């Protein structure tokens, strides 16, 4: 491995290890937010991140944390972080480890493959469905008892990326990571 390739690897590792400020057990690497990374011969780093939500107020904190993590590498002379909206981040970018840590944290992961609500945005043009079904048609898996007998209590939660659920099996409320 060349020195340059090794440096890129170290930079990538440092970026991916940055925790999400609102979900500390989960890193931005696990969330699949790292889109692109360039390191030039003079040690200048450009990072392209995909925000999970366009209206996420934590993006600034994530940017500052990523800049600090990268700047701590001695060979790095400069770092610039940008957020991109193409390609669109989708729940499919969350790693298996990310799913596990979200559930351990008490938040149902967003992706249950096959459920219409969790399919994520399609590539290219989006056409919003006309909403006629009011309640969620399928439940998330309860992070406490793993039952799928759950209902959505509220489409909005403590942060823009989370909604509120109730488990009818263990009678516990829990939060879900939205599928947007």
């Amino acid at each position, binding site marked *: 491995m060349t020195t340059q390739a090794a440096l890129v690897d170290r930079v990538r590792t440092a970026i991916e290890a940055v925790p999400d400020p609102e979900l500390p057990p989960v890193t931005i690497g696990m969330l699949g937010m790292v889109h692109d990374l360039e390191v030039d011969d003079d040690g200048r780093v450009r990072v392209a991140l995909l925000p999970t939500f366009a209206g996420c107020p934590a993006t*600034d904190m994530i940017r500052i944390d990523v800049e600090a993590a990268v700047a701590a590498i001695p060979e790095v002379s400069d770092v610039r972080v940008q957020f991109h909206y193409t390609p*669109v981040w989708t729940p499919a970018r969350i790693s298996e480890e990310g799913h596990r840590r979200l559930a351990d944290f008490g938040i149902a992961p967003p992706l249950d493959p096959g459920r219409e609500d969790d399919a994520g945005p399609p590539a290219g*043009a989006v056409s*919003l469905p*006309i909403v*006629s079904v009011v309640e969620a048609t399928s439940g998330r898996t309860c992070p406490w008892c793993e039952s799928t007998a759950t209902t959505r209590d509220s489409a*909005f939660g403590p942060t*823009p990326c989370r909604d509120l659920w109730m488990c009818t099996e263990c009678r516990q409320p829990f939060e879900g990571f939205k599928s*947007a």
Partner: protein
Amino acid sequence: MTSLRAAPGVTIATALGAPRSQLLLVLGDDDLVTGHRASYWTGVAPAIEMDLAFATIAQDGINHADLWYQLIVGSELSGNDPQVRAAVDAIGLGRDPGDYRHAILCERPPGDIAFSIARHIVVDHVLATRLDALTGSSDRDIAGLAGKIAWEQRYHLRHAVRYLGLLAGAEPAQRSRFTRALERVVAEAFGLFESFAGEAEVVADGTLPVAHAELRDAWLERMQTVLAPHGLDGVLDVDEVPSDALGGRLGNHSPDFTDELWPEMTTLYRSDPAAEW
């Protein structure tokens, strides 16, 4: 000529009068003002679910506005650059009232729950219709951001339609109060489809793939589908659009904005545009 109150040394490279900038101001201002009005219900909504919803809708609106403004300042989304940050803040909060391009309906006071929910239903369906169209924009940044926001908008629509069902199915007195609010909101919503200065240019080059006048038809179809199951589609027959609901796209705003919302929304920024946060 648009004047901006901005921190010393901040310059805005793109003229706000350019057609693309005017489009982005329309998009951003509708979101910003809708967000500010939604924030009224934080802590005082009659149901916790609604409280959370309006708080999030407010946050989404203001953050989405910020992103549209970022596209005025630079082609790449780079709101972290201090100069870009200062310029975006100046666009959002440093303009005179007459330089805002949102529709009058968005600036109306929250009124009662019937009015706020009626506006939530109507305006969010307008925004969804327009976002759908914008995903086909010839401007890559606008198309990408529209797709992202459109997907998040599903949650707003879901909440709106849920309360449509609840208020439409309420006791007759509540239902008729809600129906009257819906009638007023739908009539004023026509102000959202007025064209803005430079619209012809951005339609011609594909930046705005569908003109506002045509978006209105797509929105009416959507509303028909949403309202008909509740027997409320009659509110879509609007005889006359109230003239005081028009003019927002050209910066002619009502005292609801110039004397009330604008002073409150911008007071902190105006007190010290150079403050660092």
